[in-house]
């Protein structure tokens, strides 16, 4: 047994009166990776921050013990903690967009911990920074040293974060959802990078993720957290093969995996509802150096039949949302046509009647409901605007809530009194109120936990079957696209890479790009 780097015993965290982490214990050894999984809010971040003495919430209280190479961190003095942070422990946080200081050069940000802990001279620190940038795979590191964070892509920023965390060869690396905000392809690169570095330096790693797929790729051991309790703490393969806890089983179950679920079959003879051809959208972005053009959607065509689902998939920035926005009229299309049940959507002011036939459900359930409006007011809006309810309005609202499996009392609530899944259901109910011909779902489940995502997806499938709905399903996760769609359109840089029936596409991808996407999908179970 090699040496224990971090040893956490019965760690409890309370904020205010509320205890959030109820006594968690775990240990990580040198060169080993511990994965922590759990739903959002289960206390993953709090546990790790408290264990390393980085928790800074007002009125927080930490008890228990956490030893880093034998040194007790719970209750340690700020100075003692500072000597550890950035030195023997390195941190990588979730959001690469905001975790680097926008006003400082990369050099400054990387050399800071080196100068502070190693008392290195400017030149030595700079040399080390170069080395680190090279190690994390930033091209032309010399030139990049004087760059600012906004000049880097998301993946590059996360690499810089890793460089900072590894600057002083820490014994322990804490990675809190380091790849959640990244594309699948970038995510795979970052995972490989960390594994590679770990092999070279023998650093112990604690890797937090809500995605079991990621964890199974990086970790040897897994700790499953739920509501602040450790439910399972076992080697990963053991857990995957034989989950003992019901909750773990559910997590595994809910995980979208390619080929696991298929959409209900749809009748190919159904009439065409939406016919899009040659859709083209350009944005002119004004920069101080002049106007620049972004070709967001480049000559995209597709048809959608009643009762079918068309999946649109692609990396971030590939133009998926822009297609949806052009159809709903939020952005203006530059060319092309879109005919919805005989009505041309593009290029003119559309009537209110036409607008009604296209409903949209957005990604973020937090921002798509008016925080100042009760659930019933949000659902009532389309009813009032289009005069859609025949009988009593309250009756109809209750009916719609029933359709999305929410109790009628929810009508009185405000959005902040709902969970994410409930909010997304309300959004769906509001879309249903329009009695639309086509429903556009733009990453409708991307921000939900896997178990809730699974339920919402199931709800959508049921509604499609029961009500004969037609979906335009936008997502970046190939597995759920596969689960929901009859046809799939793969988009890259606004261009169609492949547009075929889902079955054919997943069986035998034609374009290289589709293949890269499929390759980057994490396997269900790591080998060995």
């Amino acid at each position, binding site marked *: 047994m090699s040496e224990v780097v971090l040893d956490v015993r019965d760690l409890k965290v309370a904020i205010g009166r509320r205890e959030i982490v109820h006594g968690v214990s775990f240990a990580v050894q040198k060169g080993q990776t511990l994965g922590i999984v759990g739903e959002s809010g289960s206390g993953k971040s709090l546990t790790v921050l408290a264990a390393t003495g*980085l928790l*800074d919430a*007002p009125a927080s209280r930490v008890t228990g013990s956490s030893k880093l190479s034998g040194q007790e961190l719970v209750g340690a003095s*700020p100075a003692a*903690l*500072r*000597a*550890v*942070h*950035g*030195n023997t*422990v*390195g*941190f990588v*946080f979730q*959001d690469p967009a*905001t*975790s*680097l*200081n*926008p*006003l*400082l050069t990369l050099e400054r940000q990387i050399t*800071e*911990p080196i100068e*502070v*802990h190693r008392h290195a001279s400017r030149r030595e620190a700079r040399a080390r920074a170069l080395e680190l940038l090279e190690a994390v795979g930033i091209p032309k590191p010399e030139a990049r040293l004087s760059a*600012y964070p*906004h*000049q880097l892509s998301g993946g590059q920023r996360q690499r810089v*974060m890793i460089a*900072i*965390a590894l600057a002083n060869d820490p014994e322990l690396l804490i990675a809190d959802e380091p790849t959640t905000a990244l594309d699948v392809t970038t995510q795979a690169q970052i995972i490989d990078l960390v594994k590679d570095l770990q092999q070279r330096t023998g650093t112990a790693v604690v890797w937090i993720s809500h995605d079991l797929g990621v964890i199974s790729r990086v970790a040897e051991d897994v700790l499953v957290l739920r509501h602040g309790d450790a439910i399972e703490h076992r080697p990963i393969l053991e857990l995957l093969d034989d989950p003992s806890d019901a909750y773990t089983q559910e997590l595994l179950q809910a995980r979208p995996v390619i080929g696991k679920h298929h959409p209900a079959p749809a009748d190919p003879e159904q009439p065409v509802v939406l016919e899009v051809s040659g859709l083209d959208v350009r944005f002119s972005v004004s*920069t*101080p150096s002049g106007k620049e053009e972004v070709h967001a959607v480049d000559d995209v065509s597709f048809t959608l039949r009643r009762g079918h689902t068309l999946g649109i998939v692609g990396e971030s920035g590939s133009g998926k949302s822009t297609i949806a926005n052009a159809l709903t009229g939020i952005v203006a299309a530059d060319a092309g046509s879109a005919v919805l049940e005989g009505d041309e959507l593009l290029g003119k002011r559309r009537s209110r009647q036409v607008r009604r036939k296209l409903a949209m459900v957005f990604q973020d359930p937090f921002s798509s409901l008016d925080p100042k409006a009760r659930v019933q007011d949000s659902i009532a809006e389309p009813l009032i605007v289009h005069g859609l309810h025949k009988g009593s309005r309250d009756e109809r609202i209750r009916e719609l809530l029933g359709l999305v499996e929410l109790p009628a009392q929810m009508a009185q609530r405000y959005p902040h009194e709902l969970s994410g899944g409930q909010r997304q259901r309300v959004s769906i109910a509001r879309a249903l109120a329009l009695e639309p011909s086509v429903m556009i779902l733009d990453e409708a489940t991307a921000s939900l936990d896997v178990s809730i995502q699974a339920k919402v997806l199931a709800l959508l499938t049921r509604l499609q079957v029961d009500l004969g709905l037609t979906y335009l399903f936008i997502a970046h996760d190939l597995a759920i696209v596969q689960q929901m769609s009859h046809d799939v359109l793969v988009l890259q840089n606004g261009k169609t890479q492949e547009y075929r029936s889902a079955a054919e596409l997943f069986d035998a991808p034609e374009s290289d790009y589709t293949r890269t996407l499929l390759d980057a999908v994490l396997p269900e179970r790591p080998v060995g």
Partner: protein
Amino acid sequence: MRTRLIYSVIVLFGVSILAFSIVHLVPGDPVRIALGTRYTPEAYTALRQASGLDQPLLVQYFQYVGHAVTGDLGVSFRSGQPVTTALLSRLPATISLAVVGIIIGLAISLVAGVWAAMHEGGVGDGLIRLASQFGVSVPDFWMGLLLISLFSAKLGWLPSSGYTAITDDPVDWLKHVILPGATVGLVAGAIMTRYVRSAVLDVRSMSYVRTARSKGLPPRMVTFRHIVRNALIPIVTITGIQLATILGGVLVVEVVFAWPGLGNLVYTAVQNRDYPLIQGSILLIAAMFLLVNFIVDVIYALVDPRIRLS
């Protein structure tokens, strides 16, 4: 920057129209004021003609703007002095007061605001917030009278009023500028403290601050290099607003301290219905306002590479 310039010209043009119409809408006869209590009707007509007040308003306006474009703001109706000269002679006092006031305000607000934000929710924070509310709620003329009666009348440390140019005697300049500067600075400081505090609070919860702490940096480095520096943009903004306000003339304070600033000049000009002088001062104040905004923009770019490099 060019659009900024065009924008400034448009705003100045709008200001000139507003200034001109307002000035001429105000009742009160400048000629009678200028002639004093005894005069003959002939003298009245003569002066009216001599000052061009008998012309149609539109003609007066276009003549005014025509000259203003060449930098000629006309001559003061009362003193016969060129308006530009009269305004320039007031600038040193105005700028002295503004600079000293803003320095005092900044010093107070940076120290108190940053400290309060870094100790959010504590007793000190509560006291600073309350004190800043007191400062915002006290009428400034009141504060001025108080300072005079304490430091000048009671203790005799500082002169109660007046102004010496810094070029004549820097020590004397300082003695004279301290009290009015403190009056202006305390009020500005109270207002700015609130903004500094909330700006620092906003930054403090940013993810990159957690990153900085995770590097084990000393607290001072985290506070200044990472937090305060990122809070500078809103701080610069509110400083600019305060500076522009003081430059525009803190009339009541200037009256209390017999300070020869623009506010005092404008006030007498209004009393005398000295149209060219009023219009000139309004244009100057507006121009300074725009200039300060411009400088604020430049500082933004200096502080923030995202603005500088894009």
